[in-house]
């Protein structure tokens, strides 16, 4: 017997129960209902509508709760996917689809909860027992809290995903930045220089002259006749080009020293002016002090005179 029960799926006998209840109610209302059939029927209807409301409320609340549960399951799947992303095989499409679906679900659930709350409020104005109303408000609040926590988790998952993406971008940049400057150029340029013999130093020199002339703009004409002259003069020119570079370094140091000296001199001037201003203002301060002393003396004398006057007035 118990086995059979387990095998058979449940039978929804709610309809039968409801019809039985209807019949019973009708029999009750038809019995003592002679004096006020309308009122009792209306009361019965009211009760029925209350019951209907309650079951309607429960149905909707349970639907919303189920929806929230499903959404949180989808969210956990999304979180797993987002954590799993690596640099190369990124399940972007799935993640985006799942994100869109979850967002839709959350908005729908939100509106459903708001509807439920309105419904519950409208029903509460019908004057039902306080227990039912408090129960329904508690249910609505609970659903709202759950929805809020789900939304927060959703936001966390999205932030985690953006951070992961950023980290991957950085790593990708580190590995695949293009070699613009280094590898091909120096070997392409320098190897011909290294291979050439001493006789070919004539060609090398203008390149170095180009290099050093860029930092010292003196003696450009030496480059043009560097080609056709023997090695000794090359060396001399090299020396001459080195010396102006050395000079330019020394000159720049001298220039910097002179700048520093002039700045210090200006600072000295400024300090002198400051001292003059302050001494002048000191004189002003002394004048103010004297004026205040005079005022004090005058006021004290006036006070004494007034006191004498008071004495003379009051004694008469």
């Amino acid at each position, binding site marked *: 017997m118990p086995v059979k029960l387990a095998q058979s799926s449940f039978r929804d006998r709610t309809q039968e129960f409801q019809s039985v209840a209807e019949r019973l109610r009708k029999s009750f209302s038809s019995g003592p209902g002679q004096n006020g059939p309308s009122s009792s029927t209306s009361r019965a209807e009211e009760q029925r509508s209350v019951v209907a409301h309650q079951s309607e409320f429960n149905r909707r609340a349970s639907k919303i709760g189920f929806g929230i549960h499903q959404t949180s399951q989808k969210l956990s799947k999304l979180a797993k996917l987002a954590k799993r992303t690596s640099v190369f095989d990124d399940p972007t499409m799935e993640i985006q689809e799942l994100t869109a679906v979850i967002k839709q679900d959350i908005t729908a659930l939100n509106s459903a909860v708001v509807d439920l709350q309105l419904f519950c409020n409208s029903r509460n104005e019908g004057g039902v027992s306080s227990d039912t109303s408090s129960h329904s408000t508690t249910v609505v609040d609970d659903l709202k809290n759950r929805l809020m926590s789900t939304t927060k988790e959703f936001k966390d998952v999205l932030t985690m995903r953006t951070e992961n993406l950023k980290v991957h971008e950085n790593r990708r940049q*580190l*590995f695949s930045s293009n070699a613009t400057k280094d590898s091909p150029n120096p*070997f392409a340029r320098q190897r011909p220089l290294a291979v050439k013999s001493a006789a070919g130093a004539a060609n090398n020199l203008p390149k170095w002259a180009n290099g050093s002339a860029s930092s010292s703009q003196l003696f450009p004409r030496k480059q043009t006749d560097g080609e056709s002259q023997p090695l000794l003069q090359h060396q001399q020119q090299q020396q001459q080009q080195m010396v102006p570079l050395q000079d330019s370094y020394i000159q*720049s140091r001298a220039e910097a020293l002179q700048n520093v000296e002039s*700045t210090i001199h200006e600072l000295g001037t*400024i300090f002198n002016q400051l001292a003059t201003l302050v001494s002048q203002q000191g004189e002003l301060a002394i004048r103010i002090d004297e004026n205040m002393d005079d005022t004090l003396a005058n006021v004290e*004398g*006036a006070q004494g*005179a007034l006191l004498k006057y008071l004495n003379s007035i009051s004694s*008469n």
Partner: protein
Amino acid sequence: MKITALLVLKCMPEGADPIILANACDVSHFGFFQRSSVREFIVFVSRTVGKRTPPGQRQSVQHDEYKVHSYNRNGLCVIGFMDDHYPVRSAFSLLNQVIDEYQKNFGESWRTAQADSTEPWPYLDNALTKYQDPAEADKLLKIQRELDETKIILHQTIDSVLARGEKLDSLVEKSSDLSAASQMFYSQAKKTNQCCSIL
């Protein structure tokens, strides 16, 4: 304002390639796979520049976007790879410091070196990180910067002193008015005392 590498080389008298005595590179801003080739490139260019710098001379060569500064002092050559914005003077003062430090630490032992030395010299690495800011290397630059700041502060001081002077002016006027008023007050009080005794 970046130093990419500092090297110390021993320059052979003629022809032969210089021998590297110390090497400090900072290649962190290149991609991971270019770093070794960049190091090779730095070593190669420094050898070439060292060979071409005559003793007792300073030299700066522009190469792509690097300036390579070299200073040869009696066969000991020190080379720095800096970018274009690093001031030349600071670069050479830094090279001076490095070469002095090297001679202090290693004396004349470098003259007998025959092969590239690969052991790191911590002072060079420290110098590389410390002197990324040219003001550290060049005392003149630091002094100039501080003097400019002082000048600005002094200008502000003078402005505030002038404002103080204006306030003192107004105070002087008010105090002189006050003293005149108090004098009038005193004279009035004396007059009332003398004239009317019986009202």
